[in-house]
């Protein structure tokens, strides 16, 4: 081989080495750049803004230390929103996940029309949240809503769903459940399909009932997925915004008595109707702590839960 072609070869090899070393980073870079710019940076910057008196209208941002946090902790509306968030979170998430596990269990055997059932389960999730609230606001209507009409058969009087604290929380929770139960059922189903069939066969021979099998085999075997879904649902529930916003006819207060204003809506009210960025950022930051706390508590609870539901 001549010297020239040798050099060409080594240049090619060098280019190959550079390619192997550098390209992978270039390929994953878009995600990390985007996440840093539009995910991480805003989250961290929220903490900085929260330490200032900062509005959209003024270019002067006075440093006020923890002043916003102090005001916030004394703000009854903030605690009201915290209560509503927790209440709606529990009412919407607990029955939803139990129902989802049960549905997944029903789907997890040879079944005719399997595809049909799966598609119908996911149909609500394809519906936009705006559409869901518009549709259910009509269904939950006080005078001409279908739900009150049906309840009327059982002698229940006319319910003004949006007016009460409890009733509005139930209505909003129903919307959330309708949209997410099927989705979570499919996630559980995916995990259940990985559970070895023999376990069920053995249990059936031992005479274990269907429900016992669900409790003693399925739930322990898919625990990692349950933990995952519980955490994701918790994080989602802490940030509920669209349902209460639209259920109140786009009123940022979540009803005239703030009976269903959630924390997200509280942030939205201060950030984007009053443009008080400092105060809204402080609320966001406290919300972030709540999210971490709620996710952590639920993580521990779910992990410790033994067999039974």
């Amino acid at each position, binding site marked *: 081989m001549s010297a020239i072609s040798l050099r060409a070869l080594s240049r090619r090899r060098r280019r190959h080495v550079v390619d192997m070393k550098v390209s992978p980073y270039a390929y994953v870079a878009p995600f990390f750049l985007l996440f840093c710019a539009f995910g991480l940076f805003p989250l961290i910057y929220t903490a900085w803004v929260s330490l200032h008196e900062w509005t959209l209208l003024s270019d002067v941002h006075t440093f006020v230390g923890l002043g916003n946090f102090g005001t916030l902790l004394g703000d009854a509306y903030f605690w009201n929103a915290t209560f509503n968030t927790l209440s709606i979170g529990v009412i919407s998430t607990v029955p939803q996940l139990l129902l989802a596990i049960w549905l997944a269990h029903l789907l997890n055997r040879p079944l005719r029309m399997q595809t049909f059932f799966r598609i119908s389960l996911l149909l609500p999730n394809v519906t936009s949240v*705006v*559409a869901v609230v518009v549709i259910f606001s009509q269904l939950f209507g006080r005078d001409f809503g279908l739900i009150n009409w049906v309840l009327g058969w059982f002698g229940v009087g006319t319910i003004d769903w949006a007016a009460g604290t409890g009733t509005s929380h139930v209505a909003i929770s129903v919307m959330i459940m309708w949209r997410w139960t099927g989705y979570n059922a499919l996630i559980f189903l995916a995990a259940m399909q990985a559970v070895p069939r023999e376990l069920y066969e053995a249990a059936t021979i031992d005479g274990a009932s269907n429900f016992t099998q669900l409790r003693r085999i399925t739930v322990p075997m898919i625990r990692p997925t349950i933990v995952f879904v519980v955490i994701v649902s918790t*994080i989602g529930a802490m940030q509920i915004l*669209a349902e209460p916003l639209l259920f109140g006819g786009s009123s940022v207060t979540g009803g005239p008595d703030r009976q269903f204003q959630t924390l997200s809506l509280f942030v939205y009210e201060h950030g984007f109707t009053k443009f008080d960025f400092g105060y809204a950022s402080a609320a966001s930051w406290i919300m972030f702590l709540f999210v971490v706390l709620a996710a952590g508590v639920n993580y521990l609870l779910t992990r410790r839960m033994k067999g039974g539901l």
Partner: protein
Amino acid sequence: MRLRYLTLIAVAFFSAFPLYYSVVVASRHNSALAEVPPPLLPGGNFFANVARVFDTVPFALALINSVLVAGAISVAVMFLSTLAGFAFAKLRFRGRNAMLLITVGTMMVPAQLGIIPLYMLMVKVEWTGTMYALIVPALVNAFGVFFMTQFLERALPNELLEAGRVDGATTWGLFWHVVLPVARPAMAVLGMLTFMSAWNDYFWPLVVLTPDNPTVQVALSTLASGYVNDYVLGLAGTAIGTLPLVLVFAVFGKQIIGGIMQGAVKG
């Protein structure tokens, strides 16, 4: 056994009924809603109501915007996720496992809480009111990267890559000629999932857009909030803004569900 089918049929009914009923209301006149019993079958007013939607909000513009935004995001997510997924699944580099772990971890970050600085950022670069504000932050996401990584790890044989290498292909050449063709089915599923979630996105568009240049969801919320008691109008808008997607889903549902369940398994 029979009970199981009955339960599932009941669940299917409750899943579909609100959508069906929205069409019933959307095809009626407001006065029909006050009847007892309420109407349970579609009426003949649908197109008149839809016309009213177009008169009330800039719905044609909203449809164009939504197609544009959801389309651009889907194409970018499919491409960039496959690229990153290829690197994570098949290339060796320092810090790979840690970076993949971080990627998955970011899915847990409640990004909504950073919405105020994000808005301030958009004001600064003068993207408020434009579709850039929706498209650029969404060009690639952790779910897509993870989804494609999972798929390529499983579906792309190493021999295929080695054969390409022996032929002197660069990693980019491998991506283009070997990875993309293999990844196509998963990319299609990811594209559909991305399109649906971009189409349905509400909070961020509401914050950053204005009612005169909206996406479909923003236009719908204008309808729903400005005309609270005009259920017919709101539901007619909902029907034309939602049903196309629901129909597409009903057709491709099997593949989409397969994708969701695959993405789920490893949690």
